[in-house]
């Protein structure tokens, strides 16, 4: 015979639920669990009332049916222990160690700029704890804010991007801060798309308008525009496929990808001369395709293990021997943007293999989090973060492996770049937060008008309203 405490005998549902929650240490889980238990007690109470019991009696019996509050609470506490994805933390740790070793090695080899190089290394060591603090901070943040205040967050981030044009450094008319702002904006944009669920073509157009305005803000930074447009389009495509907009999928997809493909292809059409040197080097005038040609040359002279052969950039043309020049003296940005090309030449292709394996493992773990999300919000936010990181990896690897070179930005967490490090640590912290809160984040319920064809005539069916939220999303 189970022992019931006094409160249970008094039959108060909310007292029971409170007692259960007292056993659950994770405060954030209380709301979701309370709601579920309260609803259950209500259902049970109604069942007893239908059997002829009085209201007071029914509630008492319904509470008794639940079981001992403390035991239940303790068991629920056992399942609601918020924790990070340890696999990802391990990979982040490995990436950081690789980064420290890489930067140290680079600082040793920086012959001409000796003093400055070791300075960069020490500045990274100082930034390291700050980056970790950012990751931990984002981990404890309630990421569902992105779903609750998407427009405010996105608008603020865009405003900051605009403001920074007054302060940020620029290179050849391109403001360097824009790229890093886009890294943040992509995930916030996912929140904007989420807010347009159930709004049909109007919602789709709204997302498109936000996208267009953002691209205008990015100004002359074509790389930022491409990065944002492609990732944004993929996010909207996923939303369309998940029936968030409830529109004709084919029409909607054309509406999205038409303009985006135009944005991507337009530079090739209007400035073909400049953009073709992203891929080809033949016939390039001085400075155009120069870097790409050099990278390909160094790579083709690299071995599997050990330092590569002398290349035409190092050998003096007429005399056939190295004239004292080294790769460090010849390859631009070998210390940061092209550090992988540099390491491949110095130590062999095995370095590239290890890097690619590390990066692939990270991406697999990230997408695993995406796939295991219970809520639509969790899915789209984690997708935004994952794609942002994948995009950066792709840009870096394509450039360093001589496939395609347009801009060069750091490989997240690994290659030198302090701002990149901090931003990416923030993104990792955010996706860890998504993972942590999976069991308690719930999507808002929204309502749509369903028109059914019943016996040849159109019947309008309204679903029930719940306060200001309206639609039933039954499918996941």
């Amino acid at each position, binding site marked *: 015979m189970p022992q019931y405490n006094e409160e249970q005998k008094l039959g108060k549902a909310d007292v029971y639920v409170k007692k259960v929650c007292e056993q659950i240490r994770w405060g954030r889980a209380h709301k*979701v*669990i309370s*709601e*579920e*238990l309260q*609803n*259950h007690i*209500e*259902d*049970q109470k109604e069942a007893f009332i239908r059997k002829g019991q009085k209201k007071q009696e029914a509630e008492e019996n319904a509470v008794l*049916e*639940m*079981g*001992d*509050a403390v*035991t*239940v609470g303790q*068991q*629920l506490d*056992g*399942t*609601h222990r918020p924790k990070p994805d340890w696999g990802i933390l391990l990979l982040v740790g490995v990436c950081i160690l690789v980064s420290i070793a890489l930067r140290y090695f680079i600082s040793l080899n920086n012959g001409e700029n000796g003093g400055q190089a070791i300075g960069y290394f020490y500045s990274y060591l100082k930034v390291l704890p700050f980056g970790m603090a950012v990751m931990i901070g984002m981990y404890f943040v309630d990421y569902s804010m992105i779903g609750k205040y998407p427009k405010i967050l996105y608008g603020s981030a865009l405003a900051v991007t605009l403001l920074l044009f007054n302060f940020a450094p620029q290179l050849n008319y391109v403001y360097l801060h824009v790229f890093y702002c886009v890294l943040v904006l992509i995930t916030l944009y996912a929140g904007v798309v989420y807010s347009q669920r159930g709004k049909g073509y109007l919602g789709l157009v709204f997302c498109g308008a936000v996208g267009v305005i953002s691209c205008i803000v990015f100004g002359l930074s074509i790389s930022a525009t491409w990065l944002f447009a492609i990732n944004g389009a993929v996010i909207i495509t996923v939303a369309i496929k998940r029936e968030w907009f409830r529109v004709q999928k084919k029409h909607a997809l054309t509406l999205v990808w038409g303009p985006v493909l135009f944005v991507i292809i337009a530079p090739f059409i209007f400035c073909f001369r400049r953009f073709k040197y992203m891929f080809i080097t033949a016939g390039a005038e001085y400075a155009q395709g120069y870097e790409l040609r050099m990278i390909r040359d160094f790579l083709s002279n690299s071995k599997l293990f050990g330092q590569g052969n002398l290349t035409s950039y190092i050998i003096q043309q007429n005399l056939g021997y190295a004239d004292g020049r080294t790769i460090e003296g010849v390859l631009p940005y070998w210390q940061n943007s092209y550090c992988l090309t540099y390491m491949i030449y110095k130590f062999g292709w095995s370095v590239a293999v290890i890097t690619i394996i590390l990066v692939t493992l990270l991406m697999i773990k990230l997408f695993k989090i995406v796939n*295991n999300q*219970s*809520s639509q919000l969790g899915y789209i936010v984690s997708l935004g973060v994952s794609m942002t990181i994948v995009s950066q990896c792709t840009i870096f690897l394509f450039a360093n492996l001589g496939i395609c070179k347009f801009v060069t930005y750091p490989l997240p967490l690994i290659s030198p770049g302090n701002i990149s490090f901090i931003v990416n640590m923030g993104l990792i912290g955010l996706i860890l937060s998504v993972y942590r809160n999976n*069991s308690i984040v*719930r*999507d808002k*319920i929204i309502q749509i008008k369903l028109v059914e064809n019943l016996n040849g005539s159109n019947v309008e069916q309204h*679903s*029930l309203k*719940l306060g200001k939220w309206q639609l*039933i*999303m*039954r499918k*996941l």
Partner: protein
Amino acid sequence: MKVDKSLTSGSTTMLVLKLLENQDMYGYQMIEELEQKSNNVFTLKAGTLYPILHSLEQRGMITAYEGLSEEGRTRKYYKITEKGKKLFQEKKEEWSVYATAVKDVLGGVSYATV
């Protein structure tokens, strides 16, 4: 007929997954369905069910979403995942082996020679 609780506790997870195999359900609905299907042999308490459901959700065997019941109240519906279906098959096989073994020990034909 009421049976010893210890007999059912091991298989509760399997029964819960079975309920979700063909239909998404919320907690109270599962308890009613289980009672009905087992002719009142299995009367699961909510306090037993919810920890199991939350644990299965943590492990990725089921996912949950908010829905509305016919009466118009918010409900946390549970849905089985591919991983959960695999677990269910495993548990079902385990149970089959167990049940056959019990049956053999209890009621096997005796081939005692006279």
